[in-house]
């Protein structure tokens, strides 16, 4: 417990403690407004043409907001000092070594994927995927107001990505990872000598494949088969689904690729935790 308390009260972890309260609050706030819109309908044009002067109405709001924020920042700065540890020493590696808190979701992904995926490919795809959002989301509804009913898929995917795969992983990386990046529950004491048996095996091994070449082909087949779900679904539904026709092939390829890649993370996490799977695909050049 003492290690957990030390983590929570660490000055640099104040933001992430704040996030624990801010995120649920804003989820609740937006959910309430979304439900209101879904029940009462979108505000009419007349309500929207109701214009007010920026001075004084908006400027007053900005002023009040700035004062409150500066007050919070001032109190925060007076109460809590920025951390300064011993002078840097390349020969003394702390255990655990953690990146700044906003990168801990990425560091947490390193448990499940090799660095070239967790540290380079996935962050790159997150950025590319975020930029792509407005171009692949062709639903014209739900612009400028909170709603759930009019865009359930978009909201579900984004909220899952942001809340579970970013915020929750960040919180786990910050508060529940101890020496050796081992998982420690809040009430557990950190044991720097804890030995966790490495019982992880590759997926091919679970299927009884012992030969490296066969394992390579097997892994390729699994990964290719997984990403083939996209095109197969397209061919199957293309004729009957008006939505797919409106989306078009190029947009569909981008959406399905990003979506399947995103889901690959929780799938790999479950495989690791439940079946001790190390790699899905072991090739001579890289491992996935």
């Amino acid at each position: 417990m003492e290690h957990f308390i030390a983590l929570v009260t660490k000055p640099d972890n104040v933001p992430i403690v704040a996030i624990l309260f801010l995120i649920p609050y804003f989820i609740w706030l937006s959910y309430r407004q979304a439900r209101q819109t879904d029940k009462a309908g979108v505000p009419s044009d007349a309500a929207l043409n109701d214009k007010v002067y920026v001075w004084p109405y908006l400027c007053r709001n900005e002023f009040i907001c700035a004062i409150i924020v500066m007050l919070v920042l001032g109190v925060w700065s007076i109460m809590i000092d920025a951390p300064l540890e011993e002078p840097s020493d390349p020969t003394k590696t702390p255990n655990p070594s953690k990146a700044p808190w906003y990168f801990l979701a990425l560091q947490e992904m390193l448990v499940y994927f090799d660095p070239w995926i967790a540290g380079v490919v996935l962050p790159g795809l997150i950025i590319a995927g975020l930029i792509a959002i407005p171009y692949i989301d062709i639903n014209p509804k739900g612009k400028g107001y909170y709603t759930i009913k009019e865009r359930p898929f978009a909201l579900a995917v984004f909220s899952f990505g942001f809340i579970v795969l970013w915020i929750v992983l960040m919180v786990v990386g910050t508060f529940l990872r101890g020496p050796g990046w081992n998982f420690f529950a809040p009430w557990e004491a950190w044991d720097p000598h804890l030995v966790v048996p490495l019982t992880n095996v590759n997926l091919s091994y679970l299927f009884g494949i012992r030969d490296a070449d066969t394992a390579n082909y097997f892994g390729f087949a699994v990964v290719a088969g997984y990403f083939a779900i996209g095109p197969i679904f397209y061919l199957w539904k293309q004729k009957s689904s008006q939505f797919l026709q409106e989306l078009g092939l190029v947009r569909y390829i981008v959406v399905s690729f990003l979506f399947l890649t995103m889901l690959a993370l929780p799938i790999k996490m479950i495989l690791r935790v439940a079946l001790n799977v190390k790699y899905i695909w072991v090739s001579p050049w890289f491992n996935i």
Partner: protein
Amino acid sequence: MEVSIATSPPKLARKSMNEERKGLKEKITNSDIWRSMFRHGYEDTGRRYTLQVLQNVWLHLHPPRISRHALNFRFTWCMGGITFLMFLVTAVTGVLLMFYYRPTAEYAFHDVQYLEFDIPFGMLLRNMHRWAAHGMVISVMLHMFRVFLTGSYKKPREFNWAVGVILLLVTFFLSFTGYLLPWDQLAFWAVTVGTNMARATPVLGHEGPFAPQDITQSNDVRFALLAGTIVGPSTLLRFYILHCVAVPLLASVLMALHFWRVRKDGGISGPL
């Protein structure tokens, strides 16, 4: 006089009191003393309010009028504005910190200590800079969350969303480059861990898949970031320049573009 007050109904009496007050106000505002201080009154007209925004260099970013729902704290969460405010706070405190800090391995840590213990309000200055930076990371993430939830990236705001995503990255990078500067164990190892992943960049990192033979640890992408094979004095200088000059400039240009596009794309989003 006495007779007219006695016979007038109470309602009229109140009205005359109001008029009396108004007369008093006029008497004061018409007095020589008042007029010597204030040359003219404050017109209560739309023209006046419009000019207030248009003629002020700090406010001219705003349109003269906006729709009422954009004022609603519950709609915008004020997160974009807070992010900008945090940027301004870090810029001001950051410039002040630069007076006391030398980005060399010999001095950096001791300069921070000196700042904390000997410089008046040095600790407060450093705290404000660090917490505002952390605050900016939080508010920029919440801003993105809000913009997504309200569907505000949809036509015609697609490009501004892309600019926003780049600004999110820039914010992370600003915070990350600043993380190294205290040159303590926390800074050193956080940046070591954070930049280690660059080793594994496909093709461009020496431990990444498909790296050619001649990509080694002294010429790969991590070397370019660190100016060395490990975090060292040249990394400190590199991160200092990125943190204090290059990235803030980039952020300012992108913010100007972001704010300008908010207006050009029709202001704060609303149902249309």
